[in-house]
């Protein structure tokens, strides 16, 4: 799994490729922490186009990010999930909690 983050204007994108599972916990947090404290950032997008697998720990990490984004006053979006990942998000009914594009 590789994670990188970049900021363009007021939008920050977290790019992820590979397996999004419990091994990724620290890396994921290290990627989003600085974004939460950057004043110019108002939208955080998680780019899932490269993610081929998502487990329940990943769902948990997204929930954590959701809580922290809300606390920091940032909008959060989940973007471009692949078919398999989209299905996992659908079974979990995460569209009720997240904006998924």
């Amino acid at each position, binding site marked *: 799994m590789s994670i990188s983050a970049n900021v363009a204007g007021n939008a920050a994108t977290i790019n992820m490729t590979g397996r999004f599972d419990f091994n990724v916990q620290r890396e994921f947090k290290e990627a989003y922490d600085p974004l939460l404290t950057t004043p110019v950032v108002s939208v955080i997008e998680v780019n899932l186009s490269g993610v081929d697998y998502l487990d329940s720990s990943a769902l*948990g990490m997204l*929930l*954590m990010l959701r809580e922290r984004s809300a606390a920091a006053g940032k909008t959060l979006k989940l973007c471009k999930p692949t078919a398999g990942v989209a299905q996992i998000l659908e079974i979990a*009914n995460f569209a009720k909690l997240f904006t998924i594009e």
Partner: protein
Amino acid sequence: MSMSPFHPLGMAGLALVVDDVAANRKILESLLKLEGYRTIAAENGSEAVQMFSDQRPDIVFMEAMMPVMNGYEATTRIKALAGSDFIPVIFLTALSEGEALVNCIDAGGDEFLSKPFKQEILRAKIKAMQRIRDLSRTVALQHLKIERQHNLMLKEQVLAEQIYSRAITTDNIATKYIHSLLRAVSIFSGDLLLTADCPDGKLHILLGDFTGHGLTAAVGVLPAAEVFRAMTAKGFDAPEIMSSINTKLNRLLPTGMFMTACFVVIEADLKNILVWNAGMPEVLVLDVPATSEDRVQVKHRITSQYLPLGILADIDKKLIPARLPIVSGDRILLCSDGLTEAINIEGEAFGMERYEEVAVAHKHSFKAVIDALENFCGEQEFIDDVSFVEIQCMPGILKTSSSTQY
């Protein structure tokens, strides 16, 4: 620096000196005695290996070029005999420094000593080797300590789990019409199956799957079970029970932890069921074929419509599941995602399609699915807790049923 202070003979340990030239052996042995070692000597590699095996010296001085068996070969064997103990092997060589070092390290040696021998250099190298040996022994001791503590912890967990699962499962209803397989990856299971009779004759069944597995996943199991049982016994209905479990877990579990769940209600007249699916794989209701030639059909499918429990402070009360008609003999199949996501050696997932295919193709779905899963996974172990439940909607499953009534 002058000569070292006198060591009582043998206090530094036992040294093995290996050299085919007697004069060389004698010189080194006397130098080593000055350093406080007792000494034994061998004149070739083969003798050296034998002496090492018999007497287990603390340090070995090895000449590289010898007849019968050379120093490199002997060193390899001696290191193998030493195992996890650090027994320094110092090569004796007349070769130039660079070349000597490379050759001796490659052969498994730890240091080299050039001829002609100098007392101070010998002493310095011995001291360096002793430091490494002391370090190696400390590490070995620490390892032993860690291993002991780990085993103790495992024992405690096994005991705790036995108490725990007795508390959870003891009060489940005893019936031959519910078959279940709950296989935990670690000692504690994050999957939970609860069954309880309602005062009005309904039957409540809850299959839950906590995020992760192991001890942290099992933390929410007991609270969820207590709410389920207490409220079912008091006549509360499924939405109220799910709501209470949700609130309890929301308060108890940190953000990011939740429980996917499947709540099944079998009504007292055995004519209808209600199923809430909050984040689990599709629930399948299989019908009873009219004749033995007919194939089993999937009568109802219930896909996940709710958020898993424990995420939001309140659950969505607007969603009301449909009442699904059943007849005696219909079967309800529940599974956790540990089953559909179980992988084989190639990393392929068992999958929902295969699960359904196998379940429908066999009269004894329960056994067929488990066999298919085990065959599919083969040597590959489960990566997540696996749960699979088959509920046969037979009159005998209900406490207050009377088969003549229906």
